[in-house]
């Protein structure tokens, strides 16, 4: 009985915070646009039976008719995947360095990784506008050093979006990898080296496989939010950066088409579920391995 009650609490949260909002969005995706408050029909005011009778999958059919939507999904997948790899390339050495640093430095290093979170995410992205613009700090610095003779155009390009995503999600990559590396037994490396491994092959044969759980967790923590990212591409990206988050915004705000916007959101969620399930499986495996 107590056990059941204990389990019921997290499931109640899940129901209230995830399933109910999803049901509302899903319901909206089955309705039609209308000039009214709220701007779709039918609603519960029409009665439950009437509402269910009026439901249809028209909006989902519509999504398949225009290549914009799948192009935007694909482009988001591509941007999220590239950004995840870049974040890994930057984050892994940092996590490795932290795990190898003297014991007494580690809390400070950890603190430095977390510190940016104390400032609003939006302000940090805005700061990048000041850094990357043609008259920005970066260009002024490069011009001053004489490395370039004309300012580079970085802001409003895909490069700026990648910089923004890598910067924003870097801590999510570093922390799980650091946790995995920190747990690793240092004597394993010594053993590998005693058995004739070079430092490099010891890293690839011992360190990296042991940190794989952290790498997977980090990659998913970056990939999933990057896929639906809206703020970074709209502030740093150019008009050519096609992402599903932006398409969603336009459906909702510009077209006032809440039903189609909801259908886009439902599909996005379905696409996201695959990596989320992978993440869960990985976590479970990890937990079992630890036991």
């Amino acid at each position, binding site marked *: 009985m107590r056990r059941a009650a204990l389990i019921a609490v997290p499931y109640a949260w899940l129901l209230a915070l995830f399933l109910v909002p999803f049901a509302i969005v899903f319901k909206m995706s089955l309705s039609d*646009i209308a*000039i*009214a*408050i*709220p*701007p779709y029909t039918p609603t519960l005011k029409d009665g439950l039976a009437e509402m269910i009778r009026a439901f249809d999958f028209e909006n989902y059919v519509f999504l398949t008719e*225009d*290549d*914009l939507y799948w*192009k*935007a999904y694909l482009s988001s997948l591509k941007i999220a995947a590239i950004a995840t790899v870049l974040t890994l390339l930057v984050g892994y050495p940092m996590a490795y360095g932290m795990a190898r640093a003297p014991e007494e430095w580690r809390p400070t290093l950890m603190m430095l990784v977390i510190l940016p979170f104390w400032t609003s995410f939006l302000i940090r992205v805005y700061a990048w506008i000041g850094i990357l*613009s*043609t*008259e920005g700090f970066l260009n002024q610095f490069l011009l001053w050093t004489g490395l370039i003779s004309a300012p580079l155009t970085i802001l*409003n390009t895909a490069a700026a979006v990648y910089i923004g995503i890598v910067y924003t999600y870097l801590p999510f990559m570093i922390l799980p990898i650091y946790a995995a590396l920190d747990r690793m037994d240092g004597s394993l490396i010594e053993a590998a080296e005693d058995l004739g491994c070079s430092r490099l092959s010891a890293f690839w044969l011992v360190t990296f496989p042991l940190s794989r759980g952290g790498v997977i967790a980090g990659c998913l923590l970056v990939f999933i939010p990057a896929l639906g990212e809206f703020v970074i591409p709209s502030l740093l990206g*150019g*008009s*050519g*950066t*096609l992402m599903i988050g932006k*398409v969603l915004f*336009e459906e*909702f*705000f*510009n*077209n*006032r*088409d809440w039903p189609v916007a909801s259908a886009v959101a439902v599909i996005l969620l379905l696409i996201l579920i695959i990596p989320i399930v992978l993440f869960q499986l990985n976590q479970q495996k990890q937990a079992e391995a630890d036991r």
Partner: protein
Amino acid sequence: MHALKLGMSALALTATVATAEEVRVYNWSDYIDEELLTKFEEETGIDLIYDVFDSNEVLETKMLAGSSGYDIVVPTGTFLSRQIQAGVFQKLDPAQLPNLENMWDVIEARTAAYDPDNAYSINYMWGTTGLGVNVGKVKEVLGEDAPIDSLALIFDPANMEKLAECGVHFLDAPTELIPAALAYAGEDPDGKSKEALAKAEEVLMAVRPYVQKFHSSEYINALANGDICVAVGWSGDVLQARDRADEAENGVEIVYNAAKEGALMWFDQMAIPADAPNPEGAHKFLNFIMDAQNMAAASNYVYYANGNLASQEYLIEDVIDDTAIYPDEAALDNLFTVTSWGAKDQRSLTRLWTKIKSGT
């Protein structure tokens, strides 16, 4: 202002035991002289809660979701008209608005296209969409006879190819750019048919590669700093950029021109939501704003023209004598207005805009 609010409510408490009356206003950002807000509180003893937004779409979404809690909102005419259809607003009560007599019939005649008989709204500010030009840079690139007052500046690919070097921004607003493209092509700027959209597409696709960014507010800073040399923008915003450049004394000279082929004229209208908590207070606010001196103070501050004829005698010369703000008779004839987009047309429009911006 907080101290003042406290003082006012203390006064209200001693006078009557009734709870402090509130009016909640939702207006565009940087769109009023804040001293007016204090003045309203002092005159009426009503607490004024003033919030801001920066896009019609955000406002509309709030309105359509219902129960926004605001007593006054300020949509643009084209948005207002379909929100009236959706039942978002309540009719004004002229008996509570003696200052209605101050309003300018020239503007009222035009806003009636969005709000028949002006039954639901009053005009707050109006302006035009045109060309913000960094004169020095553009002449450097295109030569002395650069067409800085013509849509050819932004829609002729030959010009745009050269201007791309120094940077061009377009408003990220299809409802502003499509009419301009149609005006350039010699079509009816209010066209919404498939053929009209195809014409506009042709014009815009030809210059799209040379547009650095589609954005509706960044151009103010970008123009003022000299980061870009041309922006398609709103009159008052470009004038703001001009003043910022003057203040910075950075040698950047900005000029605003409504295009000679015709420029879009728009109207920001104050209206009362149907579910406003305090419609009586809202009427008091509207009447306060329509006072000639108050309206003049607002225009003198934001550099936009208003729809209040009586206010004109209190306007500073910088505002009333600037034809970029108050166009003369001939220029006024050159301005056009557009109607709102229905749901289906709107979808084609947004889709076209995505295509223009992203190439997909």
